[in-house]
């Protein structure tokens, strides 16, 4: 079948700088046939940069890239980029078929194209394959887009699959399905897969070996995962190890008046300082989030709280009421891409606190926040595009820290965030709650919800409410059952 | 003379050949008189025109020949040039009525030409058995266009013709004039003569008539004159050209400012008549003399 040890793609002493920032200082990395290889490192370690150098997306400064293949010729490489690479104005079918037609002067056959796309999608999500082929990519939700993108990469028939955080936008069920497909691919065709993720559980579930890069160097090179403990891995990544003492459960004040979420199927009281988790695929939670952040003028949910309208009329209204919002879709709903960090961080404060002028003190304020979050940046005048994904995410959270908020909505705030940072973010969320802010938090990572929330509202894949789990009934299997994401 | 004089020509725009021909006249005459020559363009903007005058003065020119953007745009310009003691002569378009602080104004007599051209256009229509006439006009924001129109309208009325449609151009291109002539003939099939107020209008009308097989069946008169329209006149596609002496205006205006610099006597108002030349006379010596003062040969 295959020569399991054949190196398909390797880099030696790879170096890359952006301006004065030395990102890669001599990385070594080898992908072998028949292997699922975890590529690990904290946010900004240079994983995406390395992957993009390997596929020719950006130029290396120095080092070697070596290609080999079990078929003799150059290996075919397929890549799933960290940021979605879908052509917004084209249909799903076309987006998938696009990578198959490399010569410009070929004629497009619609039937062939649809078939190709259908087959590719059906492998991962038959339902999506039936419903979405002719939808524009712009109309897809983020996780639908992610599935399309993975399907596209799989459909190429590549020798090497580079998956840069493919699961960041997927629900647990979807991730399960993806893993099954990947394992089968490796087993049956002997390709090599590189998998980047910040979720330890997934890594252990899927991967055989791991490489860790840190400070621009390879610190662990293709070592079997079985031989490393979680703590070893985190230490090598330069992340604080898992905390021995779990945070003691803080009690929120049941007497303190909060607000009531009213939906067609449920009425949910929330108390001051409570963390309410939303679990399940996006259909359901997105309705609640839209209500709270002021974009859901026709949401089926409404609010009942003293002094509040049934629905914030706009995001501005929501901010004025004291509702903060952090999205994991940082590119579209988060960063102000061409504004420096300082404006990004302070934009919400200026609106919320009706600051008419940009104050000189804001620089200090921003520096403090950036520092408190250990945000990795050169200067507060830098543009967000020069930050790694995780650091961009911190930027969005920094916006709402230390403000008097009544409620914060988190929409997958740890999407693409490394383990250390994730812990920081959990701490930040806890602290916000402790200060009396209500936290509503949607995550597709059930483990995360179970660790942090006081109550979890579960939705099924069609967006219906399946029940409210109180803290004393927290249990991974129960939640998986409720959300219809049982493995 | 130890020092050579410099004359500046300030054109209103480069849209039409006409101003380039005036420029040619100024340049020619300047050379004959031993003067240096520079030119500026105002792009139809009075502010740019003023800036040009100031730059000219900065550069040390001794005299200005100008085709102003409009007559009304001239008072501050004249005040400035008078203050700088720079003699100024107008060519093509004159100063605002009431102004006196300029050396000379050499223009065509547009109103008289309008009268004459209207009369001749009407004659052409009647010869062809009708009384409806159409007009392809310069933009009516121009003084000269308004005067042409006034004269033409009076002539039409006096001679029993009816102006059924007037279309103004924006681009002053033949292509645009062809389209307009086509539209005019479609809307008013009984039009028997077309009054073209600028050179391209005549060419455009002739072209539209040719494609409809109406050459000669609908009369065309045109003001200005150019090699193109002269050829059309010879071919019988146009029946008469009212020549505007672009080169001549440049020559005369330059001569006037030169005289002013020399302290000689000048003529303040020179309104040149626009002579009509018909197909039969185009090769005559008289016509050749006229044409020599119209465009550079």
């Amino acid at each position, binding site marked *: 079948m295959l020569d399991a040890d054949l190196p398909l793609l390797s880099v030696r002493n790879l170096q890359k700088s952006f301006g004065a920032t030395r990102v890669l200082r001599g990385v070594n990395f080898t992908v072998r046939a028949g292997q699922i290889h975890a590529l690990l490192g904290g946010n900004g370690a240079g994983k995406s940069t390395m992957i993009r150098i390997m596929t020719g997306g950006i130029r290396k400064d120095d080092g070697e890239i070596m290609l080999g293949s079990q078929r003799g010729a150059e290996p075919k490489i397929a890549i799933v980029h960290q940021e979605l690479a*879908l052509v*917004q104005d084209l249909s799903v079918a076309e987006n998938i078929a696009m990578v198959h*037609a490399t010569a410009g002067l070929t004629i*497009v056959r619609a039937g062939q194209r*649809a078939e190709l796309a259908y087959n590719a999608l059906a492998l991962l999500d038959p339902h999506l394959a039936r419903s979405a082929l002719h939808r524009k990519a712009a109309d897809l939700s983020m996780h639908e887009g992610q599935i399309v993108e993975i399907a596209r990469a799989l459909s190429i028939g590549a020798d090497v699959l580079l998956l840069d955080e493919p699961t960041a936008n997927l629900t647990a069920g979807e991730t399960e399905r993806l893993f099954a497909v990947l394992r089968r691919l490796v087993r049956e065709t002997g390709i090599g897969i590189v998998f980047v993720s910040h979720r330890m559980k997934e890594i252990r579930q899927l991967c055989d070996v791991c490489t860790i890069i840190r400070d621009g160097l390879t610190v662990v090179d293709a070592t079997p995962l079985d031989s490393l403990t979680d703590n070893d891995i985190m230490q090598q990544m330069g992340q604080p190890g898992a905390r021995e003492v779990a945070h003691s459960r803080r009690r929120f004040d049941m007497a303190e008046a909060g607000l009531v979420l009213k939906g067609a199927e449920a009425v949910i009281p929330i108390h001051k300082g409570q963390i309410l988790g939303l679990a399940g695929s996006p259909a359901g939670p997105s309705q609640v989030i839209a209500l709270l952040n002021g974009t859901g003028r026709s949401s089926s949910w409404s609010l009942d709280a003293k002094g509040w309208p049934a629905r914030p009329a706009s995001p501005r209204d929501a901010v004025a009421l004291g509702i903060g919002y952090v999205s994991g879709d940082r590119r579209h709903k988060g960063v102000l891409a061409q504004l420096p960090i300082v404006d990004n961080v302070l934009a919400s404060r200026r609106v919320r606190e009706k600051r008419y002028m940009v104050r000189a003190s804001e620089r200090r304020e921003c520096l403090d926040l950036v520092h408190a979050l250990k945000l990795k940046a050169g200067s507060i005048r830098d543009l967000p595009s020069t930050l790694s994904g995780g650091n961009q995410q911190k930027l969005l959270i920094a916006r709402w820290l230390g403000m008097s908020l009544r409620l914060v909505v988190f929409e997958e705030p740890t999407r693409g965030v490394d383990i250390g940072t994730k812990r920081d973010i959990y701490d930040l969320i806890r602290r916000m709650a402790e200060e009396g802010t209500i936290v509503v938090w949607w995550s597709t990572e059930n483990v995360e919800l179970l660790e942090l929330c006081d109550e979890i509202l579960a939705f099924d894949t069609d967006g219906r409410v399946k029940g409210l789990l109180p803290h004393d009934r927290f249990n991974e299997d129960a939640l998986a059952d409720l959300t219809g994401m049982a493995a | 003379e130890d020092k050579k004089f410099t004359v500046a020509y300030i054109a209103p725009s*480069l849209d039409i*050949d006409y101003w380039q021909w005036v420029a040619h006249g100024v340049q020619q005459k300047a050379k004959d008189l031993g003067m240096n020559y520079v030119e500026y363009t105002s792009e139809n903007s009075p502010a740019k025109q003023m800036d040009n005058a100031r730059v000219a003065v900065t550069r040390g020119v001794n005299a200005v020949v100008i085709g102003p953007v409009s007559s009304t745009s001239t008072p501050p310009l004249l005040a400035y040039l008078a203050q700088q003691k720079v003699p100024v002569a107008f060519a093509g378009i004159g100063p605002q009525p009431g102004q006196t602080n300029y050396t000379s104004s050499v223009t065509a007599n547009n109103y008289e030409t309008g009268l004459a051209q209207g009369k001749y256009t009407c004659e052409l229509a009647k010869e062809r058995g009708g009384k409806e006439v159409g007009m392809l006009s310069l933009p009516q924001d121009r003084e000269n266009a308004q005067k042409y129109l006034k004269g033409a309208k009076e002539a039409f009325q006096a001679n029993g013709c009816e102006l059924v449609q007037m279309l103004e151009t924006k681009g002053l291109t033949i292509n645009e004039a062809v389209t307009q002539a086509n539209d005019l003939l*479609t809307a008013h099939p009984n039009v028997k003569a077309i009054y073209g107020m600028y050179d*391209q209008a005549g060419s455009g009308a002739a072209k539209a008539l040719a494609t409809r097989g109406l050459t000669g069946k609908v009369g065309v008169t045109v003001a200005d004159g150019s090699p*193109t329209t002269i050829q059309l006149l010879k071919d019988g596609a146009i029946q008469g050209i009212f020549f505007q002496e672009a080169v001549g205006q440049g020559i005369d205006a330059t001569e006037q400012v030169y005289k002013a610099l020399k302290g000689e006597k000048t003529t303040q108002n020179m309104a040149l008549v626009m002579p009509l030349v018909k197909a039969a006379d185009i090769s005559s010596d008289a016509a050749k003399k006229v044409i020599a003062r119209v465009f550079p040969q």
Partner: protein
Amino acid sequence: MTSNDSLPPAPRAPSILSAYRSEMAIAIACIALLVGVGIFVPAALSAGNFANILQASAPLVIMSLGVLVVIITGGIDLSVGSIFSLTGMVTALAMANGFGDVSASLAGLGVGLVFGSINGALITLVGLAPFVVTLITYAVAASLAFIVTNGRSLGVDSPDYWLFNSGQIIPGLPNFVLFCLLFTVALEFVLRKVTAGRWFYSVGSSPMAAYLLGIPVKRTRFAAYVISGTMASFAGLLTVSYILNAEATAGASLMLQAIAAVVIGGASLSGGSGSAVGAVLGALMITIIQNGVNLIGINSFWQGSVTGLAILVAVLIDRFSHR
């Protein structure tokens, strides 16, 4: 995971009719306009007037098709009007210097090719903004149109050159109509059915994604400007062949009209959308409005307002029919 044998077949693509919905709306608006003018001036609906409209629109149609390609890629081309003018001057000048019809025309087309390539190179290789680059070439080409003949307009003496525009390769169908049809059909085909055509949309819609997908983004954008320049040149040739005369300012008013045509035709200036049929209908609508204004004899001062308001109505209808 088991095999997918039991799954129903892939759904069918949307029908052609629904794909051309917004083009149909423009076509209907054009007809409504014509009929509206016809109420005042019956001659508007005569065969002769249709011929007028087609002849008047031909250069704009062809120029708009080129501009469309650029706009689909998310760019803009302000230089087309100047290229149009310069092409005419160069062609007429070449003829005046003894070149034959064909070689002079090729020289003229060269103008579009060269300026299109300059635009493309500055935009893709140097990375300057399309608006800036084509603003510069607009100024340079316009100025060259004066320089080449020292500002003089030139007649074309070649007796057969009119055949290029008005001759009939296919009997009964004047060439200018044939060219418009050919270009429209060819471009529509390329844009819909050829991979490279889809690249124009990809690049305009999501340049970063297109790049990551391995689409030759630079080459695609470069090609768009070359196409646009060359089409503008072709439009210039067509006009010279019609008028048998070249003027330095001939194309000055065409640039904004071409962009307006493309936009009326449903393309978005942010790129990624638009169709050849739409752009052609947009060009026709602009011509029909001008024709109507002339026929009714509306004072030309009002033309800008009327054209502007008609465009407004067109885009408003488009806007609300899409809601």
